[in-house]
């Protein structure tokens, strides 16, 4: 056998190593969404042959999917519409194809469970001062570079420590803790849809409210099913640019807008949240367009929250959002015609409070989760009697 010379060896080794290194930097050109890049979008990809061999006790057959040829299945829950061959794992990491059937591996095994103030969601016009039993399993259909909960949203179900809480136990625990509602939150509830809808149906029967805190990246059919048992939602409208959605979040804008419209049509209480990321979502023109869309399509009554960004996860080279930018956006949105605009992640800002859209008087003063002033009678302004949009009740001093 002819042996290679040292020179050749050196040359080929150098070339080989260089190729290996370039493989990653060139991925943007190849469009592999799992790689972060300034050139392409970061939408997730199906994990080939990554499913476990057998199901575990926290498995449940997919709520909505179609069978294709060769044992493949297509999930119908979110716009990714993952096509999984047997043995594959979905973009959201929670679903797998085992022997031609779609299963969720996130059913009854939440990894985060807390009892939170409703204001923390944030939901400012939904039964203030009430406590919300909040839970999440792993999984997300997005890949946000600034994810607050990446430890669970970007993990597979078996990679985390989890509680065991099947739907009946979840509802029972919420009741035991005195929570009025259950929130499906933290990671992305769309990806544990089967678990969420089963809890929500039971909770509804038991008189609890269901709150959905989500990126809104869901298909129409499952959403309509969810709306049957849903009481409130906070949808994170990450930006009003499809390009930013693709680069920063790994999703698309239009399906989220569709979700907002559907929730409005289904008369679900809705609040919208936008995280103002410096250099991306701090463009006044974009915010104006976003407000224009909201006004034209769902009207002026849904509260809009502008949240302050802090460096987090992979997006840790940007400064926090200047408070004055948030103040300016709030003023701009109010000027455009949105009636309730809030500033979040900035303590003691005027934008934490609720002012009547008719008489401009202070209705609710918020110091964090503490509400020192509450000037609503039922669902009306105490001063001018105007009906304030939202879901209110009379037990205004419940938590404090």
């Amino acid at each position: 056998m002819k042996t290679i010379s040292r020179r050749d060896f050196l040359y080929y080794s150098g070339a080989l190593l260089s190729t290996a290194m370039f493989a990653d930097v060139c991925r943007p050109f190849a469009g592999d969404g799992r790689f972060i890049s300034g050139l392409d979008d970061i939408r997730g990809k199906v994990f080939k042959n990554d499913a476990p061999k057998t199901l575990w006790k926290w498995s449940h057959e997919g709520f909505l999917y179609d069978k294709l040829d060769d044992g493949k299945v297509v999930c119908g829950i979110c716009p990714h519409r993952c096509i999984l061959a047997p043995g594959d794992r979905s973009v959201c990491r929670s679903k797998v194809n085992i022997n031609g059937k779609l299963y969720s591996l996130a059913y009854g095994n939440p990894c985060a469970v807390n009892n939170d103030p409703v204001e923390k969601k944030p939901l400012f016009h939904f039964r203030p001062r009430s406590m919300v039993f909040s839970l999440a399993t792993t999984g997300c259909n997005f890949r946000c570079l600034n994810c607050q909960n990446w430890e669970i949203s970007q993990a597979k179900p078996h990679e985390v420590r989890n509680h065991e809480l099947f739907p009946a136990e979840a509802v029972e625990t919420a009741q035991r803790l005195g929570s009025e509602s259950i929130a499906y939150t933290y990671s992305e509830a769309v990806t544990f849809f089967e678990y969420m809808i089963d809890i929500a149906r039971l909770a509804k029967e038991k008189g609890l409210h269901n709150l959905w805190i989500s990126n809104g990246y869901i298909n129409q059919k499952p959403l309509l099913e969810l709306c049957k048992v849903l009481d409130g939602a906070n949808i994170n409208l990450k930006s009003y640019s499809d390009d930013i959605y693709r680069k920063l979040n790994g999703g698309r804008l239009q399906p989220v807008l569709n979700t907002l419209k559907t929730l409005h049509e289904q008369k679900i209480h809705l609040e919208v949240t936008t995280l103002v990321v410096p250099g991306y979502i701090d463009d006044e023109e974009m915010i104006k367009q976003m407000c224009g869309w909201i006004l034209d399509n769902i009207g002026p009554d849904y509260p809009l929250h502008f949240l302050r960004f802090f460096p987090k996860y992979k997006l840790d080279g940007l400064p926090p959002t200047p408070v004055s930018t948030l103040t300016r956006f709030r003023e701009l949105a109010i000027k455009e015609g949105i009636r309730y605009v809030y500033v979040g992640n900035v303590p003691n800002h005027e934008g934490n409070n609720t002012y009547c859209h008719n008489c401009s008087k202070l209705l609710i003063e918020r110091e964090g989760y503490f509400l020192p002033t509450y000037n609503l009678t039922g669902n009306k302004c105490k001063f001018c009697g105007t009906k304030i949009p939202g879901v209110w009740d009379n037990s205004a001093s419940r938590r404090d």
Partner: protein
Amino acid sequence: MKKNERVTLLVVIAAGISSIVVQLITIREFLAQFHGNEFVISLILFNWLILGGIGTLVAHLITPRYWEPSSSRLCQLSFILAALSVIQIYSIRELRDFFFVHGSSVGFYPTLAYIFLTIAPYCLLIGFILPYSLFVLRAKTPDYSGTRIYITDNIGDITGGALFSFALVFLVTPLKAIFIANLPLVAASFLLFSFTGKQRKYLKIIPGAAITLLLLAAGIFFEPFSLAPSEGKLVHYSESRYGRIAVHQDNGQHTLFTDGVPVFSTQNQSIAEETIHYPLAQLDNPQRVLLISGEGGIMKELKKHGLKTVDYVELDPEITAVQFKFGLIENIEGLNVINQDGRAFLADSDKIYDAIILNLPEPDTFQVNRFFTDQFFSLVKKRLAPDGVLSFSMEGYDNYLAEPQRQKLSSLYNTVKNHFKHVLLMPGLKIFFLCRDISIKTDIPARLAEKGIIARYIRGYYYGNLTKKRISDLNNLMDPNTPKNSDDSPLLMRLMFSQWFAKFSSSPVGFIAALAGLTIIYLFRIKREEFVLFSTGAMTMGSEILIIFAFQIFYGYIYFQIGLIITVFLAGLLPGALLGDRLREGGKQILVLTDGLLITLMGILILALKMGGDRLPSFFFLVFGFMVSLACGFQFPVALHLGGGGNSAVTRSFSADLIGAACGTLITSLVFLPYFGIIWATAGLIFLKLASLIVIGTPKLSNFLRRYVLRS
């Protein structure tokens, strides 16, 4: 010496100056662009060596067979080299946002690839120029000595290192330094061209020189623009001894960036309140507080406690100047600003404090790790009043504590618990550690109300965010079996390293395995003398990395000293090579002796580190570096002589040294140091040298091994 030869050697020296200054500025640029991570330094050095080696190899392959060596070509190449140095720095700055999402951090492989891509043109050319100069000289004098070129190049390298470390780093910005460092190269090339004797030569050379100079000058002109942020505007920029400092102003908010990381912001009320009131709420009447580094808005919160003295320790005087200038830190009564390393200050001072509050970033560098070790906490304990409190924070989590982070917190918990009876972790966006010998109170809002202190963020958010359940859940998750963190075995660094890979869902294992595979194949193909050079190359670069990291561990900063360290590691090569050239007849025995010397040196290093690393003067490390490079420089001509001294022996010896150096860089920084700590990393290098001693000293055994392994 003929005029032409002299000027060619001048070009070699000037290229040496350019290469070292460009290398040092490249390292600083990457530290500033990629969050000051030391691993980046080793990745740069690794790539630099590999690319330089490929450049050298290409020179050997194509010259003189396909590309006749000539002085005029050498001049043109030198001009291109000078121009590439500016382009390289601009590429590093500008292409980052092209390849990666603006503002995002970058994982291992993309960083490696980005370094490779941006430094490739310059490094390939610098690797090409050295042998090419030799061919130019050999075109006129066929037996021209290769060692002479090696020595001349060393003179340039040392000059460049000294120029940068003792002058440029203090006086000028990076692009000005590039301009200055490349002027000798342009001048020497111009001079060389004027000796070529070609007609109408100036018509050719003047535009080349002019374009190069113009590019170098343009680099300086556009420098401020290349630093301008996308958000807001740059209101301050300086290169201090410790890192790059920039202040961005955006809509009334000032943010201070050090090495590209936003560290201070004027509008950070929540963090300021938590940082100050969690620890001070524990004390009935705090009077003396020590702050190690700060956070925007904390002085305002400290003022509420009516303290007598606040000692604020910040290593870099330029940072404190900037903090006061832009209102990131307010001047309050009793405030003493101390510009000294926090750890050194605690070791020197005999003051006793009621509270010591650390405000430091995550321990992902050795510099920061040293504030979270057993040794440091024991120092802190000595400076705290009996009922005093120590507080520090780590990055928090919203709803789930992931495993690598749990390990990190557990290690910290176990380390600090060794010194305090009570340690409590408070969850949140930052996790605060409160450490005391008497019990810790968790109802912070109630304590503040008792003391009549108003902290609006804590009042409004505390009960919703820090429920009893959340606090106990977090504390119950601490694993008592996680090992402690120490200066010489930085477990936190290793965990941060794993966390970094976990964040990017990648692992360096594939790369290291591929590299190890190729190295093993290579090792079984080389001669004994080459193995000595390979191991010496690995040891020299390994020790250079060790010393860089040791500086970080014991003195806490590197940005400024990096030039000094690289210079001493070059400085020994020249006298070593001259000495080796004289004693080369000594052959194998001389190699064995120097191997023994290297092992002894490493042994001394282990002893010195064990006896008290942070008490060692920095001079010790520099002398050590010089001695190692002296031995390395010494071995080169001896091994070359043993190998026959011909053209192919030069290439083989050079390759062995270079591949060894590249492997030593990577294995020390990515495997030895994070996984085994500095002492065992040194021991690992000794083991490598022992192997070389066996190979050179016991030819029979090594032949047997080689055959046995190859057959199996």
